[in-house]
């Protein structure tokens, strides 16, 4: 038990505190009530950021920490969305047991998909997971299950319990998703810092060596996929609750690419990076859409390629690499400024 927080822990606490009072700050700044208008809109933006942040973080557990490149992560996100939608709408379950079964189904799904696709590695794994995700995408679109999934229209108007309805009780939904993202971050940090997490990183750095040291790498990769899959499924479930629907697009390639973008832009191999990336992408997408209209995905793609080419470590990675030299540079500049004022 530590009795002192480190500086980064203080920063995290300050961030969460800031996010807790954020709706009221906006409300004060705009003079509009917290439950409507501009404050409500920005709560909505941040809710999406929280949900996407968890999704991106789950992706980074696979890609950044275990070194597994998956192109089928939408599979878990979408299945989570559909599971909770179907359970709430057609089975009439309550939200608690629905979320619990999302977890159970995600565990089973990640184990099956993981066992099948881990027979290959590297880019083959990426292709195979892509194929699995596409299979579920096609099944979601299939007209055979229209009464359950709504086929290409998707599941509409999922009955979210009134106490956390994203339309009428938005502030409460905001705090629920904020709490969800915080808990998921703490859990993920726990996993990453545990001995299991160290083995995952060993697999990322040198799989052969990890297996020669006596670790059953398949087991650890399966653990990584399962942890990541459960987190993604929960994010998907919250996404369905927030949108009040689940359509085939949540299972599509676009969803996976989104996770990849957030992870790459934020910084691979850190937990906070992808969460930051989620915020950047959500806000950047919003502003690009405002300024450039329908052509914004094109700009987005170009920005993405430029980042991959010139900023491969993302925001957090580049900061970690350069922050020391930047700080030194600014310190030197401020010193020379002070000297200039002292002896002009």
């Amino acid at each position, binding site marked *: 038990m530590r009795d002192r927080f480190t500086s980064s822990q203080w920063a995290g606490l300050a961030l969460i505190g800031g996010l807790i009072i954020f709706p009221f700050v906006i409300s004060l700044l705009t003079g509009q009530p917290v439950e409507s208008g501009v404050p409500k809109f920005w709560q909505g933006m941040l809710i999406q950021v929280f949900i996407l942040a968890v999704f991106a973080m789950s992706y980074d557990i696979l890609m950044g920490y275990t070194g597994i490149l998956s192109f089928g992560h939408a599979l878990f996100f979408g299945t989570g969305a559909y599971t909770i939608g179907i359970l709430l709408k057609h089975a009439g379950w309550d939200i608690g047991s629905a979320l619990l079964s999302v977890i159970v189904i995600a565990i089973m799904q990640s184990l099956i998909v993981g066992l099948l696709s881990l027979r290959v590695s590297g880019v083959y794994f990426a292709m195979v997971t892509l194929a699995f995700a596409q299979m579920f995408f096609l099944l979601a679109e299939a007209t055979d299950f229209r009464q359950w999934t709504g086929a290409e229209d998707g599941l509409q108007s999922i009955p979210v319990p009134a106490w956390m309805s994203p339309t009428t009780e938005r502030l409460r939904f905001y705090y629920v998703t904020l709490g969800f993202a915080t808990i998921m971050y703490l859990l993920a940090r726990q996993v990453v810092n545990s001995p299991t997490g160290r083995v995952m990183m060993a697999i990322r750095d040198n799989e052969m060596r990890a297996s020669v040291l006596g670790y059953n790498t398949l087991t650890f990769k399966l653990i990584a996929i399962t942890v990541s899959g459960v987190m993604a499924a929960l994010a998907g479930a919250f996404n369905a609750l927030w949108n009040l629907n689940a359509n085939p697009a949540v299972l599509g390639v676009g969803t996976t690419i989104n996770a990849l973008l957030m992870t790459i832009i934020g910084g691979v191999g850190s937990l906070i990076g992808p969460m930051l990336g989620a915020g950047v992408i959500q806000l950047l997408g919003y502003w690009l859409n405002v300024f450039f209209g329908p052509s914004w995905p094109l700009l987005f*793609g170009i920005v993405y390629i430029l980042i*991959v080419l010139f900023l491969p470590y993302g925001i957090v990675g580049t900061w970690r690499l350069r922050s020391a030299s930047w700080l030194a540079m600014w310190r030197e500049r401020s010193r020379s400024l002070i000297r200039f004022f002292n002896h002009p």
Partner: protein
Amino acid sequence: MIEWIQRRRGLIAGIVAAILFAIWASSQYEPRVLASILLSGLTLGALYFLVTSGLSLIFGLMDVLNFAHGTIFMIGAYIGFTLYANPRLLLNMLPFVLAFVAGWLLARWLPFSSLPTGHRRPLWVVAVLVGVFAVWGFELAPLATTALSSGGRVPTEQAQAPIGIFIARTVGLAIAGLIAGAAFIIGNEHTRQPAPRDLVLSSGLLALAIIIAPLRLNAEGWILALDSNARFLLALVAGASGGAALGGLMEWSLIRPLYSRPIYQVLVTLGLVFVGTELVKGIWGPGGYFMELPAWFSRRGPSCPSPNLIAWLQDNCASIDVLGRPFPSYRIFIIALGIAMFIGIAVLLRYTRLGMIIRAGVQDSEMVQALGINVRRVFTLVFALGAGLAALGGVAAAPFLGISPGLGQEFQLQAFIAVVIGGMGSFTGAAIGALLVGLARAFGDQIVLTGIQLPWMSEAMTFSPSIARASTVLIMALVLLLRPAGLFGKKE
């Protein structure tokens, strides 16, 4: 003997499965239905082959998984279709491309390489600014959509910039190319000595660009006045060469700097899918187009369908009689194209020097490099070849499947599945995988149409097309369980 069987366990199991499936299929369907299912399967297989062969060669040689291969397929379809229906867009863009390349080549001849390295970055910025300024306000979308939606034959003067401004833009792009070329040369030790042929080539290209600029109005009419067969052949050539150029450019500019970071190559190609799809949507619009069949494959009349292939050569009917059922003759053409390409590549790989280098490179590209062969250039060539094949497939698929921005995605997925089934890096594997997936799709479509009745079922079970499409993933899962490296892949 036993060892022989053990080593070829997979092959034998495959043959047995194929025979069992053939027995089941022939008991299920009458021969003429079976024949048309098989031909449909071959058609799809031929198209898949055009995508998978490039994908597999590129992966085998340089370990790059090109996620943008389906996008190139789609862009090839758009280029070919544009040339076929109304070449206005292409004719307007051609001088720009030529001028830029001419400027780039000219920079190699001028003594730019002696400039200090510090000039490099500012020069790039200037080149981009000049290029953007030169094409600013030049709208591609009206050139593409107005021409295409009105059936191709609209007055050519409309929607085209005045000649003076057009020439100015062309010259501007040549200057941008010159500056970019200079920026590229500075500090690049691998650049060879300036040769006079650069000057000749670049002035030739520039002259061509300037000549095309005023003639583009007439050229559009000339191309449209050709008969549809000639235009179709031109479309195939233009689509394939456009795709090859794009592929070569892509390898040279985006893939080559990243050979030390393999994962990032895949990520870049994924970004290109995004950019390519959005560009196509921006230029040609988000909706789809329908490409008409050329005259060779579209005649209808009292003598149709043609009784056999020889008769079809005479009467060019839209369909050919196969065991009493008409089968579209265009699909026969696709099959023939696929087979021709298969033989062509097989010959290239087996009997030419380039093919020898490629085969050696698949084994060990570093060794080939050490033997004094410029492997990087072979990489670019193979990338261009693969992309060209995919684009050719796109043009060939256009009259059969229609053209839309989503065309590539579907092919990409099925091609991935085919490659995984066949085994990455194996040319034969790519062909067999494509054929298997094509046949599976054809049987799936038939089952969607009529339902399936297995021996223990009292009545036929039906399902939707989506499930038929998803079922190929199951085949892939099965192959992966039995042989993780694919049917023809090497064990790791």
